[in-house]
């Protein structure tokens, strides 16, 4: 069997539209292509789950299961179409985690929250718990190809301890900036931006999570230093920054 299960709010008018659109697809396949799925579409009603990112997120949830025999010509097309339709933002169905699940991180964030523009919601809560268990992603015991693809990972880096100390006195004044951002996924990168009192900007990096960098302050006045931790997941980059100042 090939199957997908799609969850809707039972009061959502998209639910009926989803089923009707599936039936029209099956009709088209029969009439136009001579193929038909050997399977079923079933509707199952449940209450709300207490699991943070369980698919039964609504007080009255309806789960629509679309199953078909894979060896029958047309069946896989039917399930593939049901999956695509459910994932489409105009329909916005939620897929069962354990059945066919051709989803992306963007699909998950569209439904469970914690997108870059709105870091809240159920997924944010889930990722916060993951952060506690994995030292904000430094440990990867919960990571797999699946979790990386759908974004069940730490996506938000964090700035660790940063210190800055003078290492040479004027006239060739120098400073040493050190940071420890180990509590991040290993692929996180560190960048430095140093703005001189004259407004000249230096962009340095990428650096390792634990490192230091020496820089000179030839002009008198205040230097602004921004430490940025940058993490890219599935084409989306999120950053965390820390700001320091030194006066030359």
């Amino acid at each position, binding site marked *: 069997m090939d199957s997908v299960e799609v969850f809707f709010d039972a009061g959502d*008018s*998209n639910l*009926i*539209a989803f089923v*009707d*659109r599936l*039936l*029209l*697809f*099956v*009709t*088209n396949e*029969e*009439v*136009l292509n001579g193929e038909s799925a050997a399977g079923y579409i079933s509707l199952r009603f449940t209450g709300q789950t207490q699991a943070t990112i369980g698919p039964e997120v609504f007080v009255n949830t309806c789960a629509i299961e679309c199953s078909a025999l894979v060896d029958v010509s047309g069946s896989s097309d039917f399930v593939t179409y049901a999956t*695509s*339709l459910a994932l*489409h*933002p*105009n329909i916005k169905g939620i897929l069962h985690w354990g059945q066919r699940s051709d989803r992306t991180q963007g699909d998950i964030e569209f439904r469970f929250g914690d997108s870059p523009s709105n870091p809240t919601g159920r997924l944010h809560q889930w990722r916060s718990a993951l952060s506690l268990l994995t030292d904000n992603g430094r440990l990867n015991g919960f990571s797999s190809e699946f979790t990386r693809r759908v974004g069940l990972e730490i996506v938000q880096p964090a700035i660790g301890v940063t210190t800055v100390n003078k290492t040479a006195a004027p006239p060739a004044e120098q400073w040493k900036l050190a940071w420890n951002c180990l509590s991040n996924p290993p692929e996180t990168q560190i960048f430095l931006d140093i703005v001189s009192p004259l407004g000249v900007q230096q962009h340095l990096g990428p650096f390792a999570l634990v490192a230091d960098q020496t820089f000179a302050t030839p002009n008198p006045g205040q230097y602004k230093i921004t430490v940025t931790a940058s993490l890219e997941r599935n084409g989306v980059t999120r950053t965390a920054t820390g700001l320091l100042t030194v006066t030359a």
Partner: protein
Amino acid sequence: MPLTFYGSWSLVVLNAIHQLGGANMRMRIQGSTDADGIVTSPVGQGIASIDGASWNIFIEFSRDNNVTWKEDTDYRWPSVTATNGLVVNITASVHYYNEIFEALDLVQLVYLNRTINPPGSGKPPFGFTVPSYWPQRGDGGGTQKGCTCGCCRCCRGKAARVVRRCCG
């Protein structure tokens, strides 16, 4: 609340938008790549394509000769038709000053992404699964004049015992 749409849709006006009930009303599109602005089409006409990754429809009303506009209560009603596939009707509340009098379908949108919404074949569905003697939805079943079997009567109001013998 605005109604959000994703991708390419067409729009047809079903009922005159500009003045319903006791208020001036308007429909405004925002966030599209090619059709932002007030919908001014007459009934029966509309916009061939509204595109954009994500765009909104606002239905607004004014009681002070278009000086200020407030958002109306609006609803989206998705459904599926045999020819257009996924369509969405937008219903707005018709205001008669202090009360909402009725809801009215203002426009119908048709989803133009023909990969996710291929048009229907136009042929009756499931001809191979529904026996010909079954009553057809809404038309009262069999058509032979004078027939009194259950198939011909069951859809005409009063309950009738369905028998497996038919006029056909």
